[in-house]
């Protein structure tokens, strides 16, 4: 078996011959961390052609949108980046069925502005919707505050089409909201970080946008108090989202120096008013209510909190009741999705590789003790080599994952060596 080829000039030339000149370019900005050459296919058939070439010539390729995820998980760039942003059409939008099929390169923002005309939404809200592509949302299983009430990509994806090995175009699921025909390849592709094939189309169920939206916020002096209040709110109400943020993050949001509980309330006017009153009764005079444009502005700031510039940032996921205690033990700044047991955590302090590795090891111990896991989402480049970005799955599960990878990607070309267990 020959070595995986790396020569950018030769790859660019081959692509040029394959899908036409002007569809290949050099990487820009963040993309340089993700790939050495970039191809811009326009159709699934062209993606298939690229995959066929890469399998034959053993060229590692990686699908990308804005290249943010790829830049953060790859230790070295892939030989070929497949930019999906040139495949960004809405293929079918059925407002009355509340389903939408799109090409993978459309951004979440573009999709939602289209379906927003009918007061509908794809209820997934990772940071930066205007640059985040649907392919990235699915492949990296991205979510945000709305996960509490609407779920994550695995809950809303009802159909997927991807180019797999042998350049085959494979579909699973369909365009109906309830469907158990065949094996669920949507689940396998969601969160697979591009390691099993290139997602070219996705179909989602949509949600109606609520009539009104209000934020109820309360300040606390300790994390424990804040999490106790969040828990009480979750028991008494049905918030759309519910965050607890640390003082440093509260400062970024414009409310300095306290732990904040932020509850997003949606629904009809009476429902919102009643929930605000009930929260005020629960949390006392520390409560403030944010409405109208101010509320949607604050929501966008919470959604878009981005720790990518931090020296070290991670996503912690544990059983929900343990989240507050875990975060205190981690001693970090955080934005916690309280009901889901998930938090983005960060540390701003400068550190060397050894200290970073020790810090991450400590976080992982804390996460595992609470039946959870930790994924590094960003690290300064000097620190990268010191630790794994992903947790290790349990040995039996990892063996199955290796078999899945070998079966779906026998040539080992799809975004290799950057996922769990060296996959």
């Amino acid at each position, binding site marked *: 078996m020959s070595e995986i080829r790396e020569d950018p000039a030769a790859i660019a030339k081959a692509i040029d011959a394959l899908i036409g000149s002007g569809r290949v370019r050099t990487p820009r900005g963040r993309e340089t961390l993700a790939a050495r050459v970039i191809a811009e296919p326009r159709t699934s058939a062209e993606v298939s052609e690229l995959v066929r070439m890469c399998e034959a010539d053993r060229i590692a390729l990686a699908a990308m949108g804005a290249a943010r995820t790829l830049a953060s998980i790859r230790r070295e760039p892939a030989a070929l980046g497949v930019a999906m942003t040139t495949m960004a059409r809405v293929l079918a939008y059925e407002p009355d069925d509340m389903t939408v099929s799109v090409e993978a390169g459309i951004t979440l923002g573009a999709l939602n502005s289209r379906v927003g005309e009918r007061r509908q939404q794809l209820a997934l809200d990772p940071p930066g919707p205007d640059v985040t592509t649907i392919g990235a949302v699915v492949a990296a299983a991205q979510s945000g505050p709305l996960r509490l009430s609407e779920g994550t990509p695995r809950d809303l994806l009802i159909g997927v089409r991807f180019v797999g090995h042998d350049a085959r175009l494979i579909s699973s699921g369909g365009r109906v909201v309830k469907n*158990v025909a065949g094996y669920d390849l*949507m689940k396998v592709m969601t969160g697979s970080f591009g390691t099993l094939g290139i997602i070219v189309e996705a179909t989602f169920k949509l949600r109606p946008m609520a009539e009104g939206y209000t934020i109820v916020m309360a300040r606390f002096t300790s994390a424990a108090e804040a999490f106790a209040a969040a828990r009480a709110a979750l028991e008494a109400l049905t918030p759309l989202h519910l965050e607890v943020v640390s003082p440093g993050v509260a400062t970024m949001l414009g409310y300095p120096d306290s732990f904040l509980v932020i509850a997003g309330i949606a629904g009809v006017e009476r429902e919102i008013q009643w929930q605000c009153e009930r929260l005020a009764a629960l949390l006392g005079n520390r409560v403030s209510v944010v409405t109208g444009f101010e509320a949607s502005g604050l929501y966008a700031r919470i959604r878009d909190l981005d720790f990518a510039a931090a020296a070290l940032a991670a*996503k912690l996921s544990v059983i*929900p*009741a343990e989240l507050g205690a875990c975060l205190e033990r981690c001693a970090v700044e955080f934005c916690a999705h309280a009901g889901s047991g998930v938090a983005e955590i960060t540390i701003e302090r400068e550190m060397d590789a050894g200290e970073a590795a020790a810090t991450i090891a400590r976080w992982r111990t804390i996460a595992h003790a609470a039946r959870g896991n930790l994924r590094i989402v960003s690290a300064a480049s000097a620190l990268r080599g010191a630790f794994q970005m992903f947790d290790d799955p349990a040995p*039996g599960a990892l063996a199955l*994952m290796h078999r899945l990878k070998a079966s779906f990607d026998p040539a080992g070309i799809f975004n290799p060596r950057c996922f769990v*267990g060296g996959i």
Partner: protein
Amino acid sequence: MNPQTEPNRGAEARLGQEQADDLAAELRAIVGENGVVARATELRVYECDGWTIERRAPQLLALPRTTAEVSAVLRTLYRRGIAFVPRGAGTGLSGGCLPLYAPVMVCTSRMNRIIAIDIASRRVEVESGVVNINVSNAVKAAGYFYAPDPSSQVACTIGGNIAENSGGPHTLKYGVTTNHVMGVELVAPDGEIVELGGAAEERVGYDLTGAVVGAEGTVGIVTRATLKLTREPEARRTLLAVFADVDSATRAVSATIAAGIVPGAIEMMDRLIIRAVEDAFAVGLPRDAGAVLIIEIDGLEAAMADHAEAIARIAREAGASEVRVARDEAERTLLWKARKRAFGAVGRLAPNYATQDGVVPRTRLPDILRVISGLSEKFGLAIGNVFHAGDGNIHPIVLYDERDPDQVRRAIEVGREILRACVAMGGSLTGEHGIGVEKQAEMPLIFSPDDLIAMAELRRVFDPAERSNPGKVIPRPGACVEVAAPHRQVAL
């Protein structure tokens, strides 16, 4: 490459008597004397699930009580090259646990412990033989429930729900089984015990839990599961809306959801069903109506009046002649009784009935119902419709008499025609009953050979030797099941 190889590649389909006796002895050493059933008369009970057209009893049944026992049983079978079929309560509707190509059945019904309840984190860990309703019962006092509610929930097991990715009326709002299973303990077909997923929401590596759910028992045996609990809604309202025809009823369904209201359930009954229910139980449905909707909303008490009013207005705009709101729990129970007893009522209209499970995009409901009505005339068989309208999941009930072979033939053909029409409208072969053996032959209607190959590859990741429930789901080369009679008479 064929996606499906011949079942029992390298495995025994039928054991010789000596081999069976020898195996029974080895299994008894693992699961105890009363953990193995080998007598033909006792095995008759296990010859089918709710798909009763085909019957075949296993040669041996093992009833393990622990994960270790399941593992030891599967290890033994693997060593001997013998295939097996997993079974929960046998309430499936597509022949998922029919032992057509495997001599041994492994039943999880004795593994029925609820292991841990964690209300603060909204998780429950159960053995796979726990009956669905018992999960909700165990957490009811704390104000929680387990959301997926198949109509067989008083009998079906969590393991069976996981295999079939079961739904139910309230999945419109709350999602199906896969949305509520956080992790599983799986005994692989070679006996190895594997932990997949867990109690935390984010997963490490591939979402293999999501691949196991809905795999119809072809990837090994799930022995434990960590499930998500849902808080009981503070309030509910149940409405009955009466329409002159199914078209206007389906318009009301779409308009309700488009208005931003996601009810807990929207169920529809057509004229044939309404009359059957009234004749049988006299629950007070209007006999001259063309269709009724039962719409249930739930959530905060503060929102109920507004939502109920909005739905009533939408229903009237769509042509409802009457909208009633159940005034109390007794009236609500009566409405649901009418819905849930529909199948029993239909039993009075004809000696036999066959229920179909198909899906269309919600907006195509009037079209598919028109097609069904046309097919009913064309084939000369009465067809009633009672179904989950909110998500386009239809359940036509074809009435026939099995003593007349021609009626049987027509009943089978009309079922297939309905499925083809669903697919032509952009729908699917099954919304919640699974492919099993019933719909294998129809899989190529919605999946290409490449799609099926990818699915087969996924299955072989878990079960390379195809020992777990062989020959199911994916169509078999040149060996399409000859469906003999549509005997399905199980409430949905």
